[in-house]
C-alpha cells in the first residue's frame, strides 16, 4: 500500500507497443550478449545496445531490496537486477513463479504454504560461486522486520506468519513460521489464512528478493542497514562495479546516476520473465522534466523516467504530432481522492459529506491535471486494472445519487446540507483546516476544490505545503486535526483490491503517526467485513468481497474518489517500449528493446 506521489503513481505493469506480435515473438527468442537484430514486418528488433533513462525526481530511493516500495524502485532497480519468489509478466495480473518453481502448495486450510525454489541460481560477483537457497529468502523476509531496514509493508502482509514480531525490531527476529527443510524448499506457516500470501501476491514484493545472511548480516547492524551499498544481484543486470563488493559512485550515486550492466551470473534459461535485451541501462539524474521529455522524444535509445506524465506542453504537442505513436497512455491502477476527516464537525455528519461529494466537479478537477488523457473519472476506489473493479460497479460505479453528475450538482448538495441541518443549504460554521500539496498540478486541483466548496458556503483555512510535509506533518497525523486533504492518492501493491481499501478505511489502521486512514473511518461493521475479507483465499471470493466493501465505503462518503490515474510513458522512435502492468504500467526495461528501420 502506498500513497500516490506526484513524481510517479505507484507500481504497475503492462506491455503495449508498436508491434505486439513482434514483442511476443521477441520474448520467445530472447537472448543477450552483443548487438544483433531480428526482424518482423517493417520493424527490426535490435538485441543489445544501451537504453538511457533521464531522472527528474531523484530516481530510486534506496539500494536495499527491503526498502523498495516506490514505482521507480520497482522499474529501475528491482525488476532489472533482482528476482522475487513470484512476479508478474508484463501484461499479467496474476503472480507467476519467478525464483519459485510453481505457485505455493496450500495445505492446512490455507495456513501452510510450501514453496520450492529453482536450484543453481547464482548471485552476482563477488558471490558468484554461491547459489540462492531458501534460507536466503527466510533471512530476506525476517530482515524486513528490522527497524534498520525501514520496510513499509512487512507488518501489513507478513505479521500473521508464526513468530513474526508485533513491531519492527532492533535485532533480527527468528520467525518460526518460516522454515527451510532443505536448501530449495521454503515453508510458510501462518496463524490464520492470509489471502495475499496464498495467492502469492504478497510474495511478489521485494522482501522476497534473496539476501544471504552470511554476507549481509554484518551490514544490517547499526541504526541504518548498509547492505544496499554492498548488494548482490540475482536478476539479468547488476550495478556497474558492484562486483568488488562495494558499489562505486560510478555505478550509483543518489539522484545523479546509475549504470546497470549484465550480471554474469544470470542465466536466461532459469529466468522465464526477463528477456533483458539491452546490454546496458544508463540512468542519468537531475534533469528538468521539460528538457528530459524533449530529449527522450527526439533522441535515440531513450525511455521516459521517474515521472508519471511529461509536462503538459510536451504532452499536448506530442499527442498532436507525429510523436503521438511514441506515447503509451495506460491506467496506472492508482486513484486520487479528497479525504474528509470524519472526526471533525461538520464532517462527522454523513449528509454534509454527501453534500461535498455532490458539489465536487470531478471533470474540473481532472482538467487541472491535464484533462481526460490523465485518467478516468473515478466513481469508487478500486481502479480498473484491479480484481474487484467490476464487482464494485465498473466505470459506472455503485450509482449513488450524490455521485451521478461528474460536473457536480449544487442543487443536490444544498438538499443534503439542509438534511444536515443547514436551513439555507449553505455551511455557516467555522473555517475548516485544509492542507494541500503546494506543487502543480496537485496545487491547482486543491484550489479548484476550494472554489467548489465555497459555492456551498464552506470557508477553508487553506494551507499549501510541500508534498512530504503534507503527509508527514499533517494529513497522516491525526492530532494535526486536518479537516480536508484534497491532494491525496493511493496506489495498489498488486492486483488484489485489499491494498486499495483496507489501509485507507479499516479502523485498525488509525495510528498516531503515518496514519493512512486519513478520514479516520471506523465503522465496526465495515471493519469486520474487511478483516474477514483478508482471510479469504480464493480469488473470486476476494474480488466479490472487496468489490462489495468498496461500494459500502463509497456510500459512507468518507472521501471523494475523483480520478483513476493514467500512466503516460514514452520513448525515442527507435525504442519498442513495453510497460509493466504490475508496476502501474511504468516502462518495463527488461522487455523493451531497440529497433531499426
Amino acid at each position, binding site marked *: 500500500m*502506498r500513497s500516490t506521489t506526484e513524481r510517479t503513481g505507484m507500481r504497475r505493469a503492462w506491455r503495449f507497443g508498436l508491434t505486439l506480435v513482434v514483442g511476443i515473438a521477441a520474448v520467445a527468442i530472447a537472448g543477450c550478449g552483443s548487438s544483433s537484430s531480428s526482424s518482423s514486418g517493417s520493424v527490426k528488433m535490435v538485441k543489445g545496445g544501451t537504453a538511457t533513462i533521464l531522472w527528474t525526481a531523484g530516481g530510486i530511493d534506496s539500494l536495499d531490496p527491503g526498502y523498495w516500495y516506490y514505482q521507480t524502485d520497482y522499474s529501475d532497480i528491482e525488476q532489472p537486477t533482482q528476482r522475487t519468489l513470484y512476479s508478474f509478466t508484463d501484461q499479467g495480473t496474476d503472480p507467476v513463479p519467478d525464483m519459485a518453481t510453481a505457485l505455493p502448495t496450500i495445505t492446512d486450510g490455507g495456513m501452510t504454504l510450501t514453496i520450492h525454489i529453482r536450484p543453481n541460481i547464482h548471485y552476482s560477483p563477488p558471490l558468484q560461486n554461491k547459489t540462492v537457497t531458501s534460507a536466503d529468502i527466510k533471512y530476506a523476509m525476517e530482515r524486513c522486520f528490522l527497524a534498520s531496514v525501514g520496510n513499509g509493508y512487512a507488518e*501489513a502482509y507478513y505479521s500473521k506468519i508464526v513468530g513474526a514480531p508485533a*513491531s519492527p525490531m532492533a535485532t533480527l527476529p527468528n520467525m518460526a513460521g518460516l522454515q527451510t527443510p532443505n536448501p530449495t524448499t521454503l515453508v510458510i506457516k501462518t496463524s490464520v489464512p492470509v489471502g495475499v500470501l496464498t495467492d502469492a501476491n504478497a510474495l511478489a514484493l521485494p522482501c522476497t528478493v534473496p539476501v544471504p545472511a552470511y554476507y549481509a548480516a554484518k551490514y544490517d547492524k547499526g541504526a541504518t542497514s548498509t547492505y544496499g551499498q554492498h548488494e548482490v544481484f540475482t536478476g539479468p543486470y547488476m550495478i556497474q562495479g558492484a562486483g568488488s563488493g562495494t558499489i562505486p559512485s560510478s555505478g550509483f550515486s543518489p*539522484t545523479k546516476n546509475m549504470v546497470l550492466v549484465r550480471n554474469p551470473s544470470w542465466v536466461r534459461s532459469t529466468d522465464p520473465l526477463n528477456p533483458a535485451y539491452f546490454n546496458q541501462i544508463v540512468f542519468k539524474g537531475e534533469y528538468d522534466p521539460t528538457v528530459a521529455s524533449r530529449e527522450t522524444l527526439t533522441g535515440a535509445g531513450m525511455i521516459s523516467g521517474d515521472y508519471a506524465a511529461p509536462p503538459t506542453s510536451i504532452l499536448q504537442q506530442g499527442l498532436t504530432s507525429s510523436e503521438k505513436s511514441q506515447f503509451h497512455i495506460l491506467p496506472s491502477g492508482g486513484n486520487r481522492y479528497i479525504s474528509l476527516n470524519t472526526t471533525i464537525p461538520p464532517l462527522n455528519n454523513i449528509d454534509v459529506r454527501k453534500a461535498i461529494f455532490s458539489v465536487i466537479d470531478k471533470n474540473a478537477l481532472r482538467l487541472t491535471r491535464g484533462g481526460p488523457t490523465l485518467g478516468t473519472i473515478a466513481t469508487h476506489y478500486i481502479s480498473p486494472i484491479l480484481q474487484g473493479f467490476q464487482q464494485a460497479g465498473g466505470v459506472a460505479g455503485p450509482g449513488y445519487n450524490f455521485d451521478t453528475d461528474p460536473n457536480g450538482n449544487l442543487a443536490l448538495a444544498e438538499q443534503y446540507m439542509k438534511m444536515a441541518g443547514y436551513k439555507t443549504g449553505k455551511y455557516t460554521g467555522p473555517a475548516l483546516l485544509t492542507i494541500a500539496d503546494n506543487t502543480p498540478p496537485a496545487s491547482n486541483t486543491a484550489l479548484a476544490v476550494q472554489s467548489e466548496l465555497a459555492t456551498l458556503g464552506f470557508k477553508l483555512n487553506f494551507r499549501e505545503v510541500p508534498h512530504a510535509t503534507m503527509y508527514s506533518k499533517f494529513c497522516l497525523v491525526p492530532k494535526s486535526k486536518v479537516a480536508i486533504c484534497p491532494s491525496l492518492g493511493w496506489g495498489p501493491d498488486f492486483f488484489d483490491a485489499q491494498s486499495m481499501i483496507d489501509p485507507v478505511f479499516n479502523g485498525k489502521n488509525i495510528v498516531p503517526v503515518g496514519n493512512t486512514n486519513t478520514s479516520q473511518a471506523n465503522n465496526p461493521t465495515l471493519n469486520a467485513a474487511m478483516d474477514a475479507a483478508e482471510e479469504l483465499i480464493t480469488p473470486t471470493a476476494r474480488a466479490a468481497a472487496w468489490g462489495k466493501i468498496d461500494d459500502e465505503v463509497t456510500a459512507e462518503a468518507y472521501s471523494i474518489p475523483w480520478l483513476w490515474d493514467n500512466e503516460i510513458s514514452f520513448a525515442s522512435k527507435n525504442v519498442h517500449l513495453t510497460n509493466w502492468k504490475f508496476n502501474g504500467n511504468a516502462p518495463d526495461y527488461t522487455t523493451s528493446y531497440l529497433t531499426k528501420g
Partner: protein
Amino acid sequence: MTKYIIRRLLWMIVLLFGVSFVTFIIFYLLPSANPALLRAGHAPTAALIKAIEHQLGLDKPWYVQYLDYMKALVLHFNFGYSYFYNTAVRTMIFNRLPATISLALGAAVIWLVSGIIIGTISAVRPRSRFDRFSMGAALVAISAPPYWLGLVTLFLFSTSVGRFPIFPGAGSYVPLTQNPLHWFTGLILPWLVLAASFAAIYARLLRGNLIEVMSEDYIRTARAKGVPERRVIVRHGIRSAITPLVSAAGVDIGVLLGGVILVESVFSIPGIGNLAYQSILVGDLPMIQGTVLIGAFFIVAMNLIVDIAYAFIDPRVRYS
C-alpha cells in the same frame, strides 16, 4: 592585517555555529517533516516509526541531539546521515561541490570580465551607439529569468534538442579531472546563462560609478598632469569605481557557491543547488541542514575575502 584576519576567522566560526543552531532549531525542533518517516518506507506503522526514531536518536532531548550533531561535525566533519538518500550527507555534498564550484566560478569570470569591459566602454563613451545597445541588452538580460533563458538556449543551441546544434546540452557536465575538454564544452551554455544577468547588472553598476568617478577632481588633476587617458581610466577611474562591484561579487559568488538551483536544474548539473532543491522537496532535514551550512560557509568566506581584497584595491582602506 594579520590580527584582523584572525579576528574575522574567529567571528566566522562563531557565525557558523550560530547558523548551525538556527537551522537545527528550524529543522529539528520545528520540523517540516519527520526524519523517521522518511526512513520508514512509504506506509509505515507507528511502531516502525517509533523504532526508527529510537535508533536514530530522534527521541533524545533536543539539546542532546544538537550536541551530538555538533560533536560529529566538529570532531569528524560529519554532517549526519540522509534518511532519504540513505547515505552520508558529507559524501553527497562533497561529490557535488566541484560541479557547483565549476559553474559558479566559471560564470563569475565571464560576468566580471564582460561586465567590466562593457561597463567601462559604456562609461567612457556615454550615449554612443555601443552604450545604448549594450545598456538595452543589459536590461533584456536582467529581465530574462535564468530558467527561461536556459530552456531557450538549450532548444536553440544544444546538440541534443537544439535547432542550431552547436554546444553540448543538458547532462553533458563531466568533472574537470575526468575530461577537461568535455568539462569546458559542457559548461559553456550554463556559464553564459548564469553570467548573463550578472554581467548586465555589473555593467550597469560600473557604468554609473565610472561616469561619476570620471568627473571627480583627482581625475581632472591626473589629466592636467598629462597622464595618458587609458591610464587615467584604468588606474584612477576603474580602481575607484570597481569597489562596489567587488563587494557585490563577493556576496554573489558566495551565494552561488552555495548552489545554483535553476541553472543546475535546467542543465542537469549535479551540484549543491539541485541537491538542496530535491532535499527540500522530500523534507530531507540532514541534507538541507548540510547544504545550508555549506552555503553559509561560502557566503561568510567570500565576504572575508572581499574585505581583505578591499585593502589592496582601495589604498584608502586599511585594517588595523
